[in-house]
């Protein structure tokens, strides 16, 4: 039964390869990819259930025993992330069916969509540092292709910068792995966690830990390594931007949380302080950027940065409540941010622009779009009973219990500014006198464009209503992360 954790990596990989063969047949590609991505959701939910019942699952590839061979490990945190990734991916895929230009669909959009999922799911499930690098590269190369697909001038210019900074980060990843290998002599997560306690020169280890923080910080868009994100997510079509915004940065955050709870636990006074400082900066600078912009898509893209700060804040506080809150806010953010991006795409389809100053009064012509966006926006800002409120509530509670008052203060101020920037979008886009003439409004229906986002809004609502049972699951996940011996024992079977 353990083999089920192979499926989220294998299914998208095999389907992606097969879809390359049917380049011309868009209908078939759509049908197969829709079916596959839906099946991924069910597989991953079943995986969470099994892991909750039976504990951590491991698969030793090629039957090589744990510290020697590559190993896939599914613990609760990883499986929850896989589930979220597949939900986000389904919503983006069904949005892409309706909005993507046929040329893009013909030029291998669907295969690279699945290769991206392979890389993302692989990064979540791997239990080996070098394997993490390989899956990162799979994910990054697919994201390069997706982000530049269409080859407009803007896309080419901005994605070149994104590609260069990503490759630069990857090379640092190799360097960090080399240093880590020379100090510990192993790359298996569990084995590393065990050996890190035996290393005497903790100074070197701290340097390596910070190197990894830089590497994952580039992928996760931590301030001051965030500058590539807003422009490069602005270029591609909204379906792609939503997919990348929902998945890529979260993989960086996941890797930071994984390495800092499992491996680099030797000098926490220092490392966790740095993480808290970065969290505060990331939140604040991200939200200030969002407040200053007047473009629908750019505001959402920059908000990704500020939300990454919240996730890292949960790690920096490092209590059960805070870690559970961090996982909750990752879940909340992936769901709600994708919904917001999809409604941004629907708005773009209706008005033909993303510039806030060029549109107004959509609430009169397209009321459903307006209210659905409104629900997602106040969920992001943290109004109860939607999921955003409980995410921030858990983090604030954890921070107050641990005595980190300043970061709690910053997070509350940032929450207020988030609300401000969301209300700004709502006022400009949906209030005022309609910018479209009645004929245009009749012609440009949103109808089916709204459907992919609706399940996401329902999930956000349910996450808020069912916060208590959900937190039981998340506390379990946090306990697994805070006690590395559970992970080590289930991998090395001692």
């Amino acid at each position: 039964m353990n083999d089920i954790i192979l499926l989220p990596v294998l299914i998208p990989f095999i389907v992606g390869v097969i879809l390359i063969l049917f380049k011309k047949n868009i209908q078939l590609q759509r049908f197969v990819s829709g079916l596959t991505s839906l099946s991924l959701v069910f597989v991953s939910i079943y995986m969470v259930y099994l892991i909750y019942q039976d504990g951590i699952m491991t698969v030793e590839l090629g039957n090589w025993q744990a510290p020697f061979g590559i190993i896939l490990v599914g613990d609760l945190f990883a499986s929850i992330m896989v589930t979220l990734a597949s939900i986000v991916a389904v919503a983006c895929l069904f949005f892409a069916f309706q909005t993507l230009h046929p040329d893009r669909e013909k030029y291998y959009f669907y295969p690279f969509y699945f290769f991206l999922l392979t890389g993302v799911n692989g990064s979540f499930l791997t239990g080996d540092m070098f394997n993490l690098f390989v899956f990162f590269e799979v994910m990054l190369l697919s994201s390069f292709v997706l982000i530049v697909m269409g080859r407009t001038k803007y896309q080419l210019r901005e994605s070149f910068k994104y590609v260069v900074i990503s490759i630069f980060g990857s090379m640092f990843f190799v360097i960090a792995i080399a240093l880590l290998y020379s100090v510990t002599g192993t790359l298996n997560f569990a084995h590393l966690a065990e050996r890190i306690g035996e290393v005497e020169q903790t100074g070197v280890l701290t340097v390596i830990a910070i190197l990894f923080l830089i590497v994952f910080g580039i992928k996760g868009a931590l301030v001051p390594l965030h500058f590539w994100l807003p422009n490069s997510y602005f270029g591609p079509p909204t379906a792609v931007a939503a997919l990348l915004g929902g998945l890529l940065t979260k993989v960086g955050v996941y890797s930071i949380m994984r390495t800092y709870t499992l491996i680099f636990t030797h000098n926490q006074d220092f490392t966790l302080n740095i993480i808290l400082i970065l969290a505060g900066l990331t939140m604040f600078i991200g939200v200030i950027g969002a407040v200053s912009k007047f473009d629908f898509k750019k505001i959402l893209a920059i908000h990704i940065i500020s939300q990454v700060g919240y996730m890292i804040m949960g790690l920096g506080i490092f209590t059960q409540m805070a870690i559970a809150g961090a996982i909750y806010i990752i879940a909340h953010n992936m769901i709600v941010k994708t919904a917001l991006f999809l409604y941004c795409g629907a708005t773009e389809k209706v008005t033909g622009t993303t510039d806030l100053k060029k549109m107004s009064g959509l609430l009169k012509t397209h009321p459903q779009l307006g209210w659905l966006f409104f629900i997602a926006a106040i969920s992001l800002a943290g109004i109860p009973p939607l999921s955003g409120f409980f995410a921030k509530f858990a983090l604030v509670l954890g921070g107050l219990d641990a005595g980190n008052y300043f970061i709690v203060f910053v997070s509350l101020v940032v929450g207020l500014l988030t609300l401000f920037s969301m209300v700004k979008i709502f006022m400009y886009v949906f209030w005022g006198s309609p910018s479209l003439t009645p004929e245009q409004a009749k012609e440009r229906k949103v109808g089916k464009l709204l459907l992919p986002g609706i399940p996401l809004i329902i999930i956000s609502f349910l996450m808020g209503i069912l916060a208590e049972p959900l937190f039981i699951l998340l506390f379990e996940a946090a306990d697994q992360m805070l006690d590395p011996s559970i992970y080590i024992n289930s991998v090395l079977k001692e």
Partner: protein
Amino acid sequence: MEILMILTVGVIVSVSTYLILTKSLLRVVLGLVMLAHGAHLLFLTMAGLKEGAPPLLGEYASSYADPLPQALILTAIVIGFGVTAFLLVLSYQTYKAHKTDDLDELRGSADE
């Protein structure tokens, strides 16, 4: 030998840093390729340049070379190869679309 290797890595990384900071598209790409070489060489050195027999079944020796870093570097080289190919095509397309390879002129401006 290790010292010499480390010095070589230092030289390669500094050259690549210089190249990445120049204004020409192609030089930035070359700089990244150099950086990859530096990283791989560092990996090889960091794992220890041990004298020893090849780690094969049937060889009996007092010490064996560590095969893991070499396998990992090989993987990293292959990945680097693919990424470089993509990057070259991307920079050529960028050059064709913008008619320039000067990064100063490829600066992002808000309105376009």
